[in-house]
């Protein structure tokens, strides 16, 4: 077996049903490949990793991999993950969420985890829709698109998950697409190595719901759309606003250092200990 595939198989739970449950061509599988390769490259052992998810098509992901896994409730993955990390700071806690999971029902958990700078990695598969439950609009559904709950047209504006994360204070935010799979590997690697709250927004496609309702075609055509609308931050730096219209940036959007919640908490413990002596 060739190396890359051998590596993937090392981390899959072969007692689960394969091929996996996702639709043919769904981007979540591509993202799973990137996640496994990045974890392997960072050199974490299987037992050091805790993979936490909420509910949704994306939320199914931890079922398939042989780490410590926690499949929680819709929108609450970050709350569970925060508990895991505080209880055992030695663990590497990675959270995978859908756009609905992360910024609709879980939106408050998301902004506050970023603000507190808890040492977690949050990977969000943004397919602009509730995939699992039948194509309802999510907070990332763009204006003017169709979903089963906006069948005439969507009249709300969309959140940018990455910009929300930056504004909420996350010290690391990266955005990629499943078309740009190698960039995804490197963004995840950087996020896993970052101390603090690290976010990777993965632009993906749900051709079964979003694609069908908006006549965007197959998985292949939606990946061509990603290819044609993504611009690397490096390239974007030399482009005019006009040229950047209808495009989105991919790459590292922010990488800065801020005090980590757990380190600060440790200081408080020390202060309390000396004060009580």
């Amino acid at each position, binding site marked *: 077996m*060739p190396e890359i*595939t051998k590596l993937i198989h090392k981390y899959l739970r072969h007692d689960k049903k394969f091929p996996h449950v996702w639709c043919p*061509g769904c981007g979540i*599988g591509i993202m*799973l490949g990137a996640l496994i390769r990045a974890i392997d490259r960072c050199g974490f052992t299987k037992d050091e990793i805790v993979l936490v998810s909420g509910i949704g098509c994306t939320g199914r992901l931890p079922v398939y991999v042989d780490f410590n896994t926690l499949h929680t409730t819709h929108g609450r993955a970050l709350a569970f993950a925060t508990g895991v990390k505080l209880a055992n700071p030695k663990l590497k806690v990675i959270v995978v969420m859908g756009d609905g999971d992360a910024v609709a029902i879980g939106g408050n958990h998301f902004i506050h985890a970023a603000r507190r700078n808890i040492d977690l990695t949050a990977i969000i598969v943004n397919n602009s829709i509730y995939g699992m439950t039948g194509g309802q609009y999510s907070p990332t559904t763009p204006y003017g698109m169709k979903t089963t709950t906006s069948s005439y047209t969507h009249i709300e504006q969309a959140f940018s998950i990455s910009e929300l994360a930056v504004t909420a204070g996350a010290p690391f935010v990266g955005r990629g697409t499943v078309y740009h799979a*190698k960039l995804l590997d490197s963004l995840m690697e950087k996020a896993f190595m970052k101390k603090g709250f690290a976010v990777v927004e993965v632009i993906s496609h749900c051709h079964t719901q979003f694609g069908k309702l908006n006549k965007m075609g*197959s998985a*292949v055509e939606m*990946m061509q759309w990603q*290819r044609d609308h993504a611009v690397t931050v490096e390239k974007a730096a030399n482009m005019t606003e006009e040229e950047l219209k209808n495009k989105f940036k991919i790459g590292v959007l922010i990488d800065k250092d801020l005090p980590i919640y757990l380190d600060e908490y440790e200081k408080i413990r020390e202060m309390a200990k000396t004060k009580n002596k």
Partner: protein
Amino acid sequence: MGTKEKKTKIDIYKAWCKACGICVAFCPAEVLARDEAGYPYVKFPEKCINCGWCELRCPDFAITVYKKDKGLKEIDEEQKK
């Protein structure tokens, strides 16, 4: 080049393949094609440039490329097929 030994070996694991067409659509060297049922097959193995993209983008871990001695060639992600 072009001799039999230099061909990259490509495996397609049909039991996991869902015939989504991603590997075929984005192969930069048009090595792969789809059969009547939509499943990929290796049509022109000698054309393979061993970039590894079919494997990286397969959502189902169903296609694998064996490395040639030189290792994977880097192909710019930005390139238009």
